[in-house]
């Protein structure tokens, strides 16, 4: 097992190298660069374009150099100095832009994941063990409704309802008066008052999905002979279902954890824009639109690293859960 993890980690190195090249090519693919789109924006606003300043910027960021050279400059800075470059648009180092937003993204994503599991788990088990009961049909109905509703629409509806009926502004993570205030109990309370909205909005579709998956998996398992055999031992129904079929039906959950990590960065960008959340989604969207290449490149790199780690994590977890997989590892 240990050797397996080390082997997988070593494999990351060539994969990362290949991915960094592809990332760099991708962000260079759209015609022009940040400077040309900035010049166009300035021209549209009727501002005068300072040729000398443009040239200085070009020189400073090496934008006049061939692509291969630009790539090596970028990647050596990252590896040797941990310097992800500067964002043209924000005029700040990329790293200072990313980390706080990343923290909030992790909080919100893990929170909505937790919400999803806590809601989906009991409902999925109930639906499977009481197949075709009225409650099962109800859960199925609302599940599909939740899945079919786009998240951002749900966010808009919730915000509108909060505003109209409760006179609340539910956007953002803090009320205006706490936005810049130092941390205190009151601020945490304010955060919790705001946090549930994105958690519910982001968690709904996932919850519906998970209920369907768990219900289907568990239904498959419930009819298997080992469940009857466990029943023939004299276990209580609750104990035997929790110990045997649920344990096996859970595998697909675990393998989906791998997808959650990259989702942290890219997912929910639109919801974050709607709810004005300080997460990475909107920032990345903006970076891609304005061709803010170092910022966009760093995001793409982070995404891939997280995907790799996520896949490894779920593979390890699967091996821990299932001895049959452990054996082939």
């Amino acid at each position: 097992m240990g050797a397996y993890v080390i082997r997988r980690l070593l494999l990351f190195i060539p994969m990362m190298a290949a991915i960094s090249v592809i990332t760099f090519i991708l962000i260079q693919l759209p015609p022009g660069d940040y400077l040309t789109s900035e010049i166009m924006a300035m021209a549209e606003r009727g501002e005068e374009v300072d040729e000398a300043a443009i040239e200085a910027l070009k020189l400073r960021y090496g934008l006049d150099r061939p692509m291969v050279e630009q790539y090596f400059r970028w990647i050596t800075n990252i590896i040797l100095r941990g310097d992800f470059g500067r964002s043209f648009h924000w005029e700040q180092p990329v790293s200072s832009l990313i980390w706080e937003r990343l923290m909030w993204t992790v909080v919100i994503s893990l929170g909505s994941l937790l919400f999803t599991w806590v809601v989906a788990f009991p409902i999925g088990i109930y639906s499977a063990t009481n197949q075709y009961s009225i409650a099962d049909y109800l859960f199925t109905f609302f599940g599909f409704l939740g899945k079919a509703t786009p998240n951002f629409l749900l966010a808009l509806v919730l915000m509108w309802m909060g505003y109209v009926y409760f006179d609340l502004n539910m956007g953002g993570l803090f009320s205006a008066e706490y936005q810049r205030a130092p941390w205190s109990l009151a601020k945490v309370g304010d955060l919790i008052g705001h946090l549930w909205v994105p958690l519910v909005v982001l968690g709904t579709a996932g919850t519906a999905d998970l209920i369907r998956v768990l219900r289907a998996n568990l239904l498959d398992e419930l009819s298997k002979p080992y469940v009857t055999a466990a029943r023939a031992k004299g276990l209580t129904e609750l104990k035997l279902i929790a110990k045997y079929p649920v344990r096996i039906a859970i595998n697909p959950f675990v393998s989906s954890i791998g997808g959650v990590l990259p989702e942290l960065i890219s997912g929910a960008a639109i919801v974050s824009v709607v709810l004005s959340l300080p997460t990475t989604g909107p920032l990345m969207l903006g970076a891609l639109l304005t061709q803010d290449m170092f910022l966009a490149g760093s995001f793409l790199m982070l995404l891939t690293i997280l995907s790799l780690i996520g896949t490894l994590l779920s593979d390890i977890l699967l091996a821990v859960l299932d001895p049959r997989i452990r054996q082939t590892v």
Partner: protein
Amino acid sequence: MNPPAAEVLLEVRNLRTQFKLRQGVVRSVDGVDLTIYRGQTLGVVGESGCGKSVTAQSILRIVPHPGEVVGGQILLHGKAGGAPVDLATLPAKGQRIREVRGGEIGMIFQEPMASLSPVHTVGNQVIEMALLHREGGQDEAREAVLDMLSRVGFSEPERTFDSYPHELSGGMRQRAVIAMALVGRPSLLIADEPTTALDVTTEAQILRLLKRLQADLGMAIMFITHDLGVIAKMADHAAVMYLGKVVEHSDVDALFHDARHPYLRALLSSVPRFGGSVQQRLASIEGIVPDPFRLPGGCPFHPRCPESIAGRCEVEVPVYRTLPEAADRGVSCHLHAPLGEPVAAQR
């Protein structure tokens, strides 16, 4: 074969189990009568779909949804005498039937791999049974499990305890399942085609093992199979089932040498024999097993029966009755019922 004072352990009387499906009601078990004596083996034989497995599941009340025990009695006699418990009337999820499952009646299944959870160790699954049905704590339970594992033929029980089912061979898995079923010290072991999924060599080993365990531990066995040869080897008594009914119930000697029911006689003549001519075609039973939704009226076997009595067999359901010459033998066939007996109401 049958010692005179054999004590009755389990009596099944007129058991009926039905599956209510959208297409109609399937009467999988439709009036079954069985008697199992303490420490002896009852073979239950019949072709696929005749209701032998559902009978076993009915006894433990683990018939899968939407099946249900709808009538009859399942009388389990306790060791101390006293009034028997009627398992058929217990709530299927209640405390009492859970004590019976594993504690008084253990069960082993056809597919040893499928009846073990693939992600739990053998020890984990076996010790659960010991903890549920034996006195004492974790340490005593572990001792009991290791003892039972070595009794069923594991030379290194400690190692087996920590193995996963996929690390064992088919025969070894069935041994583990047997250990699981017996560690709660039940007085009856229901074996539902325990050797069907195994090769013949392994089958012979498992059968020998069951006989030895029965001699050591003294439990009764209800052995379900479609193989008459296995019945001959294993059973003291046997019940022959056809379409949810017991057509003949007797001691094994009589079953093979003095068969009464035409279905059993036809079955026996279809068994190939050593020394028989290879040119001759094997005898087969005419016709096919009827559609479970459209069972024939009267005796269910009459359309395929070479000796059916016109005007009687297709109208009247034959009643299961003991033979006048032997109290422990019974048959449900009009050929063996005196005319003029009361006609059973058609179910």
